[in-house]
């Protein structure tokens, strides 16, 4: 009888908290969006599932050994930890604060104590340490993305990069929004948090994860979820803005065919980009360095088997671990916060402003080039969200003129947007990191 009671007292159902219920519900919504609505499923399926796993009561899959000792530990291990952390009361809440503020050597000692008492890192926490804390996963994904990116359309018309630059205005405008809300007392974001939130507007998941790991790791869950969810919303968010800011005549502009680009140019481009980054903004070098490496593997033609692995087995493996790791930070204390609401709202604003800036820059460039050279619809592709934003440009172009294929032209600003937001990320890290 006692055993039955024990089972019940250790069951998930008995220990379920309101926060866990809410977060499991968030996980289910993410799975629903991923599977039924096809919202960036490659990331949102692992994130959503990881979120559910992280919130299974008593399983402690997303906790470190020390956190597990805090949650499940007996008096003995808690006393040892209190001694180490210098907590007189052995109150768990106090100890958690002390632990969070402790130097790395104390943290390491606490981890050893927890392990001696039989508490181990949960599996999701292990994945999180290796994939995200080390910074490796976003960089490896960027390498894979580089190996998948064809810069041909951009090289054929390098001025398209201005569109990719303009669309990054959404990032910085969102920072202003975040600090504005803070100044007005509506929210409470530090400048680091504001910068990390802004990067959502870059429409680039790995970049957003990388920046928020460095500037605001406690917001990682909300930022990553927003970044991927809004990327999937591109086909809904962008068209009204694009229609509002362009005239029917502008949308009908047919752009001249792109010149062919030689293999050699494609080989040199990642090297040129790498050098510019290295010389001007070393803070962006890890991200864009791995991106250029991936792209060089793709284009150089002599390491196809490495390029193929970077685009397939390796990026898939890293995506699984990255997704589960992001899911592991979807826990109530961090996610169910008014900050998350602010992030969701600011994120969508960032997208909208980025789209508008891109389109307006398209109009300006078109006006400067005589009014018939650039269809401003391709400007919106500058937010990146490759290749969805380019497809949206193409779709609106075809609506206005069934012979107007903008896809290839929109790929230029689209890939430029990836570079642009990585540069913006580097600037953020340099200025406020």
């Amino acid at each position: 009888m006692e055993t039955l009671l024990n089972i019940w007292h250790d069951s998930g159902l008995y220990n379920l908290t309101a926060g866990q219920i809410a977060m499991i519900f968030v996980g289910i919504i993410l799975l629903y969006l991923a599977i039924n609505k096809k919202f960036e499923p490659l990331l949102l399926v692992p994130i959503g599932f990881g979120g559910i796993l992280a919130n299974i009561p008593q399983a402690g899959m997303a906790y470190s050994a020390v956190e597990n000792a805090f949650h499940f530990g007996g008096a003995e291990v808690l006393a040892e930890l209190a001694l180490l952390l210098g907590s007189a009361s052995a109150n768990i809440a106090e100890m958690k604060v002390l632990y969070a503020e402790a130097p790395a050597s104390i943290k390491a000692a606490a981890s050893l104590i927890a392990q001696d008492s039989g508490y181990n890192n949960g599996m999701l926490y292990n994945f999180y340490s290796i994939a995200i804390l080390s910074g490796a996963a976003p960089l490896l994904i960027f390498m894979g993305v580089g190996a998948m990116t064809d810069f041909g359309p951009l090289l054929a018309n390098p001025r398209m990069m201005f569109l990719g630059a303009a669309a990054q205005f959404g990032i910085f405008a969102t920072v202003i929004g975040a600090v504005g809300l803070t100044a007005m007392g509506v929210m409470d974001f530090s400048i680091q948090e504001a910068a990390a939130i802004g990067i959502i507007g870059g429409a680039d998941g790995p970049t957003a994860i990388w920046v928020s790991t460095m500037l605001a790791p406690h917001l990682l869950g909300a930022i990553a979820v927003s970044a991927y969810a809004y990327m999937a919303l591109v086909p809904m968010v962008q068209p009204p803005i694009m229609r509002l800011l362009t005239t029917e005549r502008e949308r009908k502009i047919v752009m001249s065919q792109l010149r062919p680009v030689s293999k050699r140019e494609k080989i040199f481009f990642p090297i040129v980009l790498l050098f510019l980054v290295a010389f001007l903004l070393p803070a962006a070098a890890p991200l864009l360095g791995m991106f250029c490496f991936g792209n060089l593997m793709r284009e150089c033609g002599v390491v196809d088997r490495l390029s193929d692995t970077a685009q397939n087995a390796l990026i898939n493996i890293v995506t699984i671990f990255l997704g589960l790791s992001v899911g592991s930070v979807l826990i109530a204390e961090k996610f169910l916060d008014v900050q998350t609401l602010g992030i969701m709202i600011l994120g969508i604003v960032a997208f909208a402003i980025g789209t508008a800036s891109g389109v307006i820059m398209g109009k300006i460039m078109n006006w400067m080039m005589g009014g018939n050279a650039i269809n401003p619809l391709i400007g919106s592709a500058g937010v990146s969200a490759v290749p969805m934003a380019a497809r949206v440009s193409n779709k609106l172009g075809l609506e206005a003129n069934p012979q107007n294929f903008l896809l290839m032209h929109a790929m230029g600003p689209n890939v430029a947007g990836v570079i642009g937001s990585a540069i913006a990320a580097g600037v953020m890290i340099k200025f406020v990191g």
Partner: protein
Amino acid sequence: MNDIVAEGLSLLVFGMGFVLVFLTLLVIATSTMSRIMMRIEPAPTPASIKPNQGTASASQPNDQVLVAVMSAAIKKYRADRHDK
């Protein structure tokens, strides 16, 4: 005005400025690189833009298709025999 707002505005001005300057320099560098490349190797092959969308027409000459089928088949056949 709040301190954090000042920081935010400075981030906006310098950040956006940096992005624009960087991409402008990238436009210049890329164009220069392309021009040099084209001088070295004047006539790039017209097929160098990869079709992502499968827009290329399906009217490939039949004999080439046949060659492809046969070579694939022979390769597969040998690979199979090889495994045994």
